[in-house]
């Protein structure tokens, strides 16, 4: 029964965060357009050669998602801090992990919605021929996003409450995400190029392992960092 109550709390936090976002839309629009902008910049930097663009597509897409998405995480705590709402939230008689779970799910949905806009743009701009591997490639996208959002939500809980939060979050987060970046872009590249699962399989397993380890670790560590 207690667990059902916890789930209800998680849902309440998700709903609250997404409603705040839906009513202003400022954060979402900015992040989605920044993602598109980064893709365009990559296009200019890599030159107009269609073959070169296609080969770089998966990596460029992931970098666009990382650089744009990282802006969302601090925001999700910043809104609480500005409204003086974090302390009341901590005062509720509920386990701390429900707060993290709520923030995590809300941020994940946010990032997935951003991806829903950025991915089609990347396919058009980089002239990707989405072959038979597009469905597993979406699965890779989801796995990569889970790891990205878990660590992003966790580190932002500290960075957003420190000085120099804009620079601190990427500084902490990006080195940690190198396995996600490598695995996601390698797996989606080999899937989109039409390679069967043979090549992508190892990367997908790595992504799953990364997700499990860091979702658990950030859930456990969140208890320690949110209280001080």
């Amino acid at each position: 029964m207690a667990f059902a109550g916890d789930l209800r709390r998680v849902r309440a936090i998700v709903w609250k965060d997404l409603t705040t976002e839906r009513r202003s839309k400022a954060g979402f629009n900015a992040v989605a357009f920044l993602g598109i902008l980064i893709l365009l910049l990559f296009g200019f930097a890599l030159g107009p050669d269609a073959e070169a663009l296609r080969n770089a597509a998966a990596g460029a897409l992931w970098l666009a998602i990382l650089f744009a998405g990282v802006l969302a995480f601090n925001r999700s705590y910043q809104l609480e801090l500005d409204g003086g709402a974090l302390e009341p939230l901590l005062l509720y008689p509920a386990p701390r992990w429900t707060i993290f779970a709520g923030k995590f799910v809300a941020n994940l949905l946010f990032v997935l919605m951003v991806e829903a806009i950025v991915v089609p743009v990347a396919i058009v701009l980089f002239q990707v021929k989405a072959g038979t591997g597009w469905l597993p490639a979406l699965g890779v996208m989801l796995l990569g996003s889970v790891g990205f959002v878990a660590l992003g939500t966790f580190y932002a809980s500290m960075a957003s409450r420190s000085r120099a939060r804009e620079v601190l979050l990427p500084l902490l987060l990006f080195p940690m995400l190198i396995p996600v970046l490598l695995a996601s872009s390698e797996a989606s590249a080999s899937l989109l190029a039409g390679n069967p699962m043979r090549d992508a399989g190892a990367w997908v397993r790595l992504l799953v392992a990364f997700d499990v380890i860091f979702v658990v670790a950030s859930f456990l560590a969140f208890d320690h960092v949110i209280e001080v």
Partner: protein
Amino acid sequence: MSHAVPLESDSAAATGGPGGRGLEWFGVAAILMLVGAQALGLLTSPADRDMGHLQKIMYVHVPAAWNAFIAFFVVAVSSLLYLWKGQERHDLLAASAAEVGTVFTALTLALGSIWGRPTWGVWWTWDPRLTSTAVLLLIFVGYLSLRAFIEDADRRAQWSAAVGLLGALNVPIVYMSVRWWRTLHQIQSTPSTVDPEYVVGLRANAIAVLLVLVYFTMKRYRAARAERLAEQLEEQAALEGRGA
């Protein structure tokens, strides 16, 4: 939740914890040992068949790499101990070891680069061991910047323990992912892969660098202790209305 454990404000803490003057003598011994081990390595080993005297870089590069990993192991263990027990000394030890480990990692990378230019023909290559060492360096630079950006001592300790632990957890994953991505590095030098003529020099240097690591870490630990004590005295003075 407050973890402010009062420092033992006896003179040992003020002058920097265990040993007092003993640590200085230990430092002198460690440096002398390093000089001796370097001389041993440089003088006794013949020039390598392929690399010539370039091989001598091994006597600093390899011990620095090993000891950097030892330092980060200390960071991970002390972070875990801090989260578990909440004692300030574990936090300060983690911070000291992280600083020294970062310096040793940077040294490893720089020397590797100097060695790589004539051997591989490039300053840098995207090889797994190289790349994951660079990532390790970045993870701990992030750790140290986090510490630098937070004034509140409890918060700094708690947060950096979590970050240090997650960072250490990621090291094997980073290494694995980069290894799958690229493979080129020669098998690393250990006493079992190098010619017997080089083994003594390598072992002696590894131990000497370990002693230097311990000395640097203890030295930083003392400084951190003294800084915390100064902070607390200042706080106390402010609370008693004597001004900061």
